[in-house]
């Protein structure tokens, strides 16, 4: 029992460390570079963890990732808190019942999460003073950059999800 508690605590700390590192990169490092388009690191990580670990861990990770995303974007803790929680839940549910645990499924989950997050941000801008062409171009570039970072994050997410599955074995083995 003590060993299991220790393993659980270690796993929680690893997830928290991943969240902190991604938050620092997203909110504090990339903006200072002044690049035109920035990747949605926390959204990608939430989708990856949900895909690898299931609905409950996915929604919990999504909740905290959403809080940090709202803070990074300078918004009230609201939109992405709810959005990433629900996305984590849905992607986790799909991975428990239908999705395979392979690269295309992981990429599809990350792409879906990024796309929804980008649409949520772009819609208010389009309704104000936005030219659709410029918005579409930014959306495509942001999606592409985020997917590149999702591949870079893959080894980290895989390590975390393997550790989670080893302890809890909630997800059936699928190729």
């Amino acid at each position, binding site marked *: 029992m003590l060993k299991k508690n220790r393993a659980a605590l270690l796993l929680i700390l690893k997830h928290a460390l991943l969240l902190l590192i991604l938050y620092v990169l997203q909110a504090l490092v990339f903006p200072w570079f002044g690049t035109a388009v920035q990747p949605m690191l926390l959204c990608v990580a939430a989708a990856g963890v949900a895909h690898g670990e299931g609905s409950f861990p996915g929604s919990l990770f999504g909740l905290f990732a959403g809080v940090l995303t*709202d803070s990074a974007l300078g918004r009230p*803790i609201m939109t992405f808190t709810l959005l990433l929680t629900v996305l984590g839940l849905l992607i986790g549910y799909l991975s428990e019942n239908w999705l395979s645990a392979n690269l295309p499924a992981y990429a599809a989950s990350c792409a879906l999460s990024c796309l929804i997050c980008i649409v949520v941000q772009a819609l208010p*801008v389009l309704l104000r003073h936005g030219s659709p062409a410029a918005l579409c171009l930014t959306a495509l570039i942001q999606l592409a950059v985020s997917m590149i970072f999702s591949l870079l994050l893959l080894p980290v997410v895989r390590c975390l999800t393997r550790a989670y599955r080893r302890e809890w074995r909630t997800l059936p083995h699928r190729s």
Partner: protein
Amino acid sequence: MKKIFSRKTLVVVLIALVVALAAVISMVGTGRPGFVTSAVETVLKPVKSAAAAVAGTCEKLYGYMHDYDRLIEENAALRARLSGADREARDYDALEEENVRLRELLGLSRNNESYEFESASIIAWSASSWDSTFTINRGSANSDIAAGDPVITSSGCVVGLVRTVSSGSSVCVSLIDTTFAASVDLDNVTGSCSAVGDYSLMRRGKLMVEYISDSNRVFAGDSVITSGKGGLFPADLLLGYVDEVTTTSDGQNDVAVVTPAVSLDDLLYVYVITDFSMTE
């Protein structure tokens, strides 16, 4: 097949819903971002401040190593401009004295503008690719800042507006953000125009002025200053300079593309006008 809503996932979703609802209710009721947002911003503020300090030090070191020659040239150019500015200041003093005399003759008192400022430093820029906002280290607990207060530089150039105020920090929109709007005057154009952000111009670091009564009298280099109408900004604050006059995509209206007077990339310290009054 596993059910989508187990008890544990339901609890997590409910927590997210409660947090979101609390933020919405707080914003609708008080205009403030809410307890949860303030608490998260308070926890994250030291992290943001530390990162901003580290980034500032790294930028200074980089600048010292790579900009030495450029700084020497810039110093020489600025010295030349300063001597010209000294000459203009002397002329200005003489004109001002004449102005006072003429006003006294006409029996008018001077416009008296009094500003109350809060100084602040920028601790983070928004990570979003869809807006241009930044966070400053002043909030409701350590200043009198309120939502809607103008943000300027030490030289009186407009930087933006305060959007939301938490306890230890505030989020501001810059003048190139799509939510920014201000009533402005252009040189040689009668009547006020409207300076607004546009997404495609924001990507280029610019904004636009629309509702120009006579676009034929607008030229590149013209100053764009706040008109003071609407109560959002005091009058005579510099926004930027006209780049070009162009037509909107529907071909119906002329708009002026404006380059901000302030370089947002290099901005570290700002001033928030918490109160301004005009008496005449």
